């Protein structure tokens, strides 16, 4: 018996088992999550992912759409505009939510994967600059905000406030709000500008993180979508040019372009939308869906 065993070649068996193990491991790793979603099977679930700015709005739409079209289910996740774009490029979502325009390199990456993103403007948003309620500063110009965030101004006393250090709060770099703020406030729309956030800017992973810190810390300054501003923080009036007057962010000032830090919110589809996705987007641009936009503190795209 012992002789019989020795005649087997144990090393070959071990090798085979090890190979089988590693093969199953690599197979598990290389399966793209999107292949299941984009396979031919007619699915009635619309995958919707991206900007955290829009996530509450997208959830409200998805919920309301259940009443309109019970057969279609919209599954909404956040994670930031960059996350949604990465998912769109990798083909794992039907609709990507974005709080900024698609970047040229994202478009070319998508096209390299055989996907041509199509853009829809679904709402408008103002970015509010917020401070602690006890902070005596009530208004700032775009230049002052840029100086604060690039690190040129370090103390609230330089802005007419108390003698306190300034703690700068921002969303993470995968947030469309971050990129918009960099381009439109720090760089004032100048494509040649190389202004950057001061390295000691706190990059917080969520809007709630920013609101929580501003609510608690009198040194803090933060920015966030108007829809996320809670009543327990102080919103600053902002002016592009102080001689033209300061404006608080409201639906009126955003639509009249008086408030300078406002932007469009987008949804991108992988190619021209069809059937359920097209119906959903048409519904989003209709009046009942746009009413939800103003209920959540955003600005409707149709007056």
């Amino acid at each position, binding site marked *: 018996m012992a002789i019989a065993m020795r005649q087997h070649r144990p090393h070959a068996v071990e090798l085979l088992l090890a190979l089988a*193990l590693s093969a199953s491991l690599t197979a598990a790793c290389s399966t793209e999550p999107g292949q299941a979603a984009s396979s031919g099977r007619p699915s009635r679930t619309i995958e919707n992912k991206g900007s955290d700015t829009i996530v509450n709005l997208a959830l409200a739409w998805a919920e309301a759409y259940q009443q309109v079209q019970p057969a279609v289910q919209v599954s909404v996740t956040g*994670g930031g505009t960059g996350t949604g774009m990465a998912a769109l*490029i990798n083909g794992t979502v039907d609709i990507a939510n974005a709080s900024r325009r698609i970047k040229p390199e994202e478009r070319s990456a998508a096209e390299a994967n055989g996907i041509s993103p199509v853009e829809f403007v679904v709402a408008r948003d103002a970015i509010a600059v917020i401070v602690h309620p006890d902070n005596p500063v009530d208004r700032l110009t775009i230049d002052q905000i840029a100086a604060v965030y690039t690190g040129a101004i370090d103390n609230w006393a330089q802005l007419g406030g108390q003698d306190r250090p300034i703690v700068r709060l921002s969303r993470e770099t995968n947030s469309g709000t971050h990129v918009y703020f960099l381009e439109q406030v720090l760089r004032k729309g100048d494509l040649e500008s190389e202004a950057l956030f001061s*390295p000691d*800017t706190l*990059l917080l992973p969520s809007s709630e993180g920013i609101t929580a810190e501003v609510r608690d810390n009198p040194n803090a300054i933060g920015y966030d979508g108007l829809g996320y501003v809670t009543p327990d923080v102080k919103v600053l009036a902002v002016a592009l040019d102080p001689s033209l007057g300061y404006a608080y962010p409201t639906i009126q000032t955003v639509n009249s372009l008086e408030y300078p830090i406002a932007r469009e919110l987008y949804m991108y589809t992988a190619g021209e939308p069809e059937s359920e996705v097209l119906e959903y987007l048409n519904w989003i641009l209709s009046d009942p869906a746009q009413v939800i936009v103003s209920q959540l503190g955003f600005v409707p795209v149709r007056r």
Partner: protein
Amino acid sequence: MRGVAWTEFLITRWIRVSGYSAILFVLLIFGFLLREGSPALIQIPPSSLLGVRWYPIEDHFGILPLLGGSVVVTIGAMLVGVPLGITTAIYIAEVSPRSVREILKPLVEVLAGLPSVMLGFLGIILLAPSLRRLLDLPTGLSALTGALLLGGIAIPTIVSVAEDALDAVPRTYREAAMALGATRWQTIWRVTLPAARSGVLTAVMLGIARVIGETMTVMMVTGNAPVMPSGLQSLFRPVRTMTATIAAEMGEVANGSVHYHALFLIGVTLFLISLAINLIAAAVVFRQRTRAERVLS
């Protein structure tokens, strides 16, 4: 008879393959990290990679501030966790009465199972605001908050391993010390603890490994500002660790981009650090054992 031999043969092989597979998995993971991370060394110029600015969306890929952030938080956490962890282990193993010990040990193990996101939540709501008020810091979201919480995370690991090591010290050592007239403190400090030294050092090393790999808590409470640490005051300022950077940015990157490779390069760095910690721990244990054997022979 033949059937039994076959089963035994298969079981023996299966166990052997399982043993090898651990090595295989580590090699596969390291190979994957290297494959995805090494292009960054070519795509990113060394001046950028060794710079002090991490801002990947504008092609600033300096990983030194992230490395520094991890080091600052880990050192801080060890300053908290090692003394507390070892003294707790000594109390449980050497001092406490049996009844207390039977409650304490499972409780420490429960602490080990606490999800780190809960600790992070606690940090944001309670610890960070209190530290800001107490120490008059610009913000409570700092390396210190992270270090205190991570120290807490490391304690169960350190206690559990160190307590086992102390427990394994033969009873005769303590009896001999007592017989020579040593006090209880002298016995613990001069006899039991040195005898269990290799196990206690392993506990510390495992604690460090646990802390440097921790992600969720540090991402929530350290403020994530990629500032290059300089001097002692860095402990009281926001930092960004390597783990938090990978976690925060991995979701955003397009597969195969420079940023993607840079994040994997950080992963390789983390892997090498924990490999080094484990090798040091293994070397320490090995050296101790040979010395003990020499003494006993």
